[in-house]
C-alpha cells in the first residue's frame, strides 16, 4: 500500500512536470503575437500592409490558448463553480471530482482527440490552404493544435484523476483549486498574506 502510494505520487509528479513545462514554453507565444501586430500597424502607415500579419496573429493566439489548456488544468485554473464544492470535506470533493473525470472529462476529451486528429490529418493530406487572405498559408499546423492540445489535456486529466484517488486514500489534496481572480492577484502581494477564499 505504501509503495503503491509512492508510485502514484511519482506518476502524478511526472505528468505535472510535463504540463508545467509545456505551459512555460507555449506561454512565450504571446511575444511573437505582440511583435507581429505591432509590426503590421507600423508598416501599414509607413509603407503597405503585410500579407501575413492577420493570419499569423490568429494562428499564434489560437495556438496559445489551446496549447495552454493542459497547463491551466494542472494549475487548477479552469473556471468552475465552487461555492458548494469548497465547503465539502476533501474526500467528498475527491469522490465528486473522480466521478466527473470518469463520466464527463474522459469520454468527451477522447472523442475530441479522435475527431480532432481526423480533422488535422484530412487537412494535411489535402494540403489545405486558408482562403481568408491573399497569403493563403497552409492551415494544417493550426488544425494539428487541436489533437496536440487534447492529447496533453488527456494526459493531465489522468494526473488529476490520480490526484483524486490519492486524496481519497490520504484525505488531503496534492494540488489546489483557485478562482480566476485569485490567480490574477495571487503573486501581486508577496509582502502580505494571500487573500483567504470564502470557504477558508
Amino acid at each position, binding site marked *: 500500500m505504501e509503495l503503491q502510494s509512492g508510485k502514484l505520487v511519482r506518476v502524478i509528479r511526472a505528468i505535472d512536470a510535463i504540463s508545467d513545462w509545456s505551459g512555460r514554453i507555449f506561454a512565450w507565444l504571446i511575444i511573437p503575437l505582440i511583435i507581429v501586430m505591432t509590426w503590421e500597424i507600423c508598416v501599414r502607415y509607413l509603407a503597405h500592409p503585410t500579407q501575413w500579419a492577420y493570419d499569423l496573429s490568429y494562428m499564434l493566439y489560437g495556438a496559445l490558448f489551446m496549447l*495552454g489548456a493542459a497547463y491551466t488544468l494542472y494549475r487548477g485554473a479552469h473556471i468552475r463553480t465552487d461555492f458548494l464544492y469548497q465547503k465539502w470535506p476533501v474526500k467528498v470533493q475527491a469522490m465528486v471530482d473522480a466521478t*466527473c473525470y470518469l463520466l*464527463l472529462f474522459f469520454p468527451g476529451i477522447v472523442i475530441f482527440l479522435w475527431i*480532432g486528429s481526423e480533422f488535422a490529418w484530412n487537412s494535411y493530406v489535402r494540403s489545405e490552404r486558408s482562403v481568408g487572405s491573399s497569403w493563403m498559408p497552409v492551415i494544417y499546423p493550426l488544425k494539428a493544435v487541436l489533437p496536440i492540445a487534447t492529447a496533453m489535456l488527456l494526459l493531465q486529466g489522468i494526473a488529476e484523476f490520480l490526484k483524486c484517488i490519492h486524496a481519497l486514500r490520504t484525505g488531503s489534496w496534492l494540488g489546489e483549486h483557485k478562482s480566476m481572480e485569485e490567480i490574477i*492577484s495571487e503573486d501581486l*502581494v508577496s509582502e502580505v498574506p494571500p*487573500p483567504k477564499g470564502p470557504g477558508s
Partner: protein
Amino acid sequence: MSPEAIGGWMLVALLATIFAGFPIAFTLIILGIVFGYMGFGDTVFHLMVFQFFATMKEQTLAQVPLFVFMGLLLERAGLMERLFYVTQMILARVHGSLYLSAMFVATLFGAASGIVGASVTLLGIMAAKAMDKSRYDVRMSAGIITAGGTLGILIPPSVMLVVMGPVVGIPVTDLYAGALMPGLMLAGLYATYALVRCYLKPSLGPALHEDQHAESKTLLFVEFLKGMVPITVLLMASLGTILTGVATPTEGAALGAVGAFILTVVYRKMTRALLNHAVVKTLEVSCMILFLVAASNFFGGVFSRLGTPEVVSQALLSLELPKMMILAIIMIVIFLLAWPLEWVPIVLIFVPIVLPMVRQLGFDITWFAILVAINLQTAWLSPPVALSAYFLKGVAPQWQLSDIYKGMMQFMVLQIIGLALVMAFPQIALWLPGVLYTK
C-alpha cells in the same frame, strides 16, 4: 423527443452538473456531444471541431491575452502608486481627498488595463494605509476601493467586452465606445457620493495632516505631469487608436502591451522574473477564459441548432409582458446568477439564450450588452460572495470583513442606480458609438 425538448434537457443537465464544481468547459463539451448526437447524429462531431477551430480563428479574441499581459505589467510598473501619491498631495486640503484620488487612479487604471481582479488588491495596498493614517471611515474607504477597483471590468478596454462582442454579434469597438460613458458616469457617481457624505459629515474623510501637504506647487505640478504623461500616451496608443479606428482592436491591444513593456523598463521595474511571471500568468488567465469561450461556442452551437432558444423566447414573448418588464426580469436573473457564477459563463451561456428574445423585442443590442456589463460589475460588490471583499481583507487585515461588506453595499446601491439610469436613458451608452460610428 423533439429537438427543442432535447435542448431543454441539455440545459437542465448543465444546471445540475455546474454545481458539482467541475470545470465548466469540460462539462459543456461532453453535454454538447451527447445531446447533439441525440438531436442530429454524427454532424455533432464536425460541429465540435468546427466551433473550436472557429474560436481559434476569431482574431479579435487575441485581445484577451494582449490586454491581460498589459495589465499584469502595468500592475508592477509602479505608475499607479506615483499618481496616487501626487493627486493625494494636490487634493490634501479637500475633505475626502483620499477617496477622490483613489477613485481617480482606479478610473485611469481601469482605462489602461482590461482586467479587474488585481485592481482591488493594488488599490488596497496603496490606499488602505493612507486612509487609516488620516482616520478615514473604514466602510467608505472599503467601498471606494472595491467599487473603484472593479470599474476596470466596465471601462474599456475590457476583457469582458472582448468576449461579449462575438456573443452578441456587435463589433467590440462599438461596445468599447458604448461602455466608456457609463463607466465614467459610475466613477463620477462614486466620487460625488463620497464627497457629499464627507461634506455632510467631515469626520468620514478629514483633511490630510500637515506633513502630507506639498512643499512647492511647481514641484507638485511637475510630478503630476510626470505621472500623467506616460499613462495618457499609453491610453492614446491602445484605447485611442482603437476608438478612432487607426488600429484594429487587436493591434491596439498589442500597442498597449508594447507601451506597458516600455513603461516597466523605463521605471526600472522590469526583471527577468517579472517578464517570466507576466508571460506564464497571461497564458493561464487567457486559457481559463478562452478555452471556456471555445467550449461554450460548441455548446451554444448545438443548443441553437436544436432550436431551444427560439422556443424559450416564443414562450416568454407569448406572455405579453411589457417590454421593459421583460428587460428588468432578465437583468434581475443575471444579477442573481452572478452570485454563484463568474461572468464568463453568464456572458457565454445565459446571454445567448435570451438574445433572440431581446432582438425580437427590438432593443438595441449594443445598449443591452452594456446593461449586462454594468450588471455583472455589480456582482463584484455584492456580499458575501464578491471576491473583492476577500482581496481587500487580504491586504488590509486590520479592517473587519463586516465593515468591508457594509462599505461595498453602499456602492452596490449606487451601481444599481447607475444601471437604472442607463436603462432609462439609453443615450448614456449609445451617444458615443453614434458619434464615432454613424451607421
